[in-house]
């Protein structure tokens, strides 16, 4: 049984200062100074896959990233954690940034070369934040799509058990394999950390390269404009502290607001 998780390492936008955000030519933004983080949904997906492996020793785990050099440390970490294959599909990020179809086609091409039973994808990732890659990957692989998955309790033989959010309910479904599962706000959010021994043991394992074709035709629309968004409000900082500050804010603006409710 083969399980593959696609992931992305992206700039940590939570560390971004507004003054550092400038849209350059070709509608690009310089983010090289920001630390890198695993996309949060993908991190959940990678850990969920490890937990499935613990429940089903036959499962063979792979991880793939369609991206650049940022992902290499994570690929090595995944090998240390027991992933059999850690695959990078290097592409020109600028070409793929707003073209989820290109990313999805690259994933589908890998799946065609190495067919998988379960494909795990995070529901969204920067820079494009389109939430479109999973549905496109489902189209291009021909696998059914299961959205808003928050847990994967089990995988056995020809079926996987998933929990998913639907409006104001959580449902559990057992789905025949193969399928694409889209990981949303999962119960499991942190990828475990490999021990030094894990890392030593995996020294011989190598990151594999899959050549995704840059010339894959992109059919997604390209933005006509990219701009920063002004979110400025009054930003009045109280000169007081503690409970006096509360009363100060109350007198200045909050009282009127609360009174109008």
């Amino acid at each position, binding site marked *: 049984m083969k399980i593959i998780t696609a992931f992305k390492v992206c700039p940590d*936008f*939570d560390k971004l200062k*507004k003054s550092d*955000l400038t849209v350059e030519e070709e509608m690009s*933004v310089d983010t090289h100074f920001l630390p890198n983080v695993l996309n*949060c949904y993908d991190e959940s997906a990678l850990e969920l896959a490890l937990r499935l492996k613990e429940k089903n020793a036959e499962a063979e785990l792979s991880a793939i990233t369609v991206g650049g050099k940022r992902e290499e440390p994570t690929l090595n970490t995944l090998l240390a954690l027991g992933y059999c294959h850690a695959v990078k599909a290097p592409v020109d990020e600028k070409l793929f940034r707003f073209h989820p179809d290109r990313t999805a086609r690259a994933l589908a091409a890998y799946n065609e070369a190495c067919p998988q039973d379960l494909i795990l994808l995070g529901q*969204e990732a*920067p*820079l494009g*934040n389109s*939430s*479109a890659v999973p*549905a*496109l990957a489902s*189209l291009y692989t021909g696998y*059914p*799509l299961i*959205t808003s998955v928050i847990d994967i309790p089990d995988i056995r033989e020809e079926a996987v058990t998933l929990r998913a*959010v*639907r*409006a*104001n*309910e*959580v*449902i*559990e*479904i*057992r*789905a*025949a394999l193969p*399928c694409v599962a889209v990981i*949303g*706000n999962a119960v499991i*959010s942190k990828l475990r950390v490999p021990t030094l021994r894990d890392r030593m043991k995996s020294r011989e394992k190598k990151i594999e390269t899959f050549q995704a074709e840059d010339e894959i035709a992109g059919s997604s*629309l*390209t*933005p006509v404009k*990219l*701009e*920063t*968004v002004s*979110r400025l*409000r*009054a*930003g*009045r*900082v*109280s000169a007081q*502290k503690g*409970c006096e*500050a*509360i009363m100060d804010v*109350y007198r*200045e*603006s*909050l009282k009127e*607001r*609360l009174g*109008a*409710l």
Partner: protein
Amino acid sequence: MKILVVIYYDGSAESVTRPLAKLSPLQAEMGFSADLYVYGEKDPDNFQIGNFEGRAYFQRFEVAAAEWVAEAVRALVARNQYYGVIAADQEQASALAVLMANKLDYDFVTGVVSMRKEKEGLLCERPVYNNNLSASYLLRHPFVLSEKLPKNAGGATSLQAGTPRNIVWDYLEKVPAPAWLLEKSLIEENLSRPESPVLLAVGMGVSKREDVNRIRDFAEKNGFDFGVSRPVAMRGWSGINDIIGVSGRILAPEITIAIGISGAAAFYAGIEQSGYILSINTDPDAAITERSDAVIADDYNNVLDGLFELLSDYKR
């Protein structure tokens, strides 16, 4: 020019009337009329809506899998001429938009937060770079889009202004479960909570689990809404249904009190439609400062007692 609005029915009338009310003023502004395609896994109630004049189709699914819904919409669009198709905001709206666009061979944009009609088509904006930037797309018709419009999009909700009358449903054939679905069971229900005009939002600056619980308890006892940033939920200090922001709930309360919130754009997306924001944060240079109406630059531990005492007078 007619558009088809696709809405998921979750068993509550609000799941249909709320997105319709949100879209209605925009339709009027852009000169569209609309038909309605509502799908779900439960039989519909009688919905009373004001100024809705179009046809209303309802289709029940054993399981509303996106690919099957997309196929059903394709069949409906094939029988009618629509300027475009809009998937109303819900968990699988983006996936549905992608699949519908593929089946119809239309262009698509997902997660649209604003739109306006131009000579060449619709100019749609959506957040990118984790809500730090906005990208504009020119979407020519026929199109498919999924919306994440603000709750106050277009101003007054003209659908509610008309004389309420029942929607007359045009029932379409029930769709059986897809073959890949072997079993389905309900684990938890009634996850959504009633909205309140006051929201208490907690971020990573709240350093103890007990403090998060204290703020949640106070909010619940006093009829206020409660939410957290994603990292707080990921610590296991709060449920995933409490998450606010790009990955969670997008709210529009009259008053938001942001406690220990840094103001990261991905979180801020969930509260930026607030009428008023008071932030409590030790760092006056945090991004939330300039994104708030009023700021208390202090440790939340010094402020909570006074805040609770004050807000108790306004319990809902």
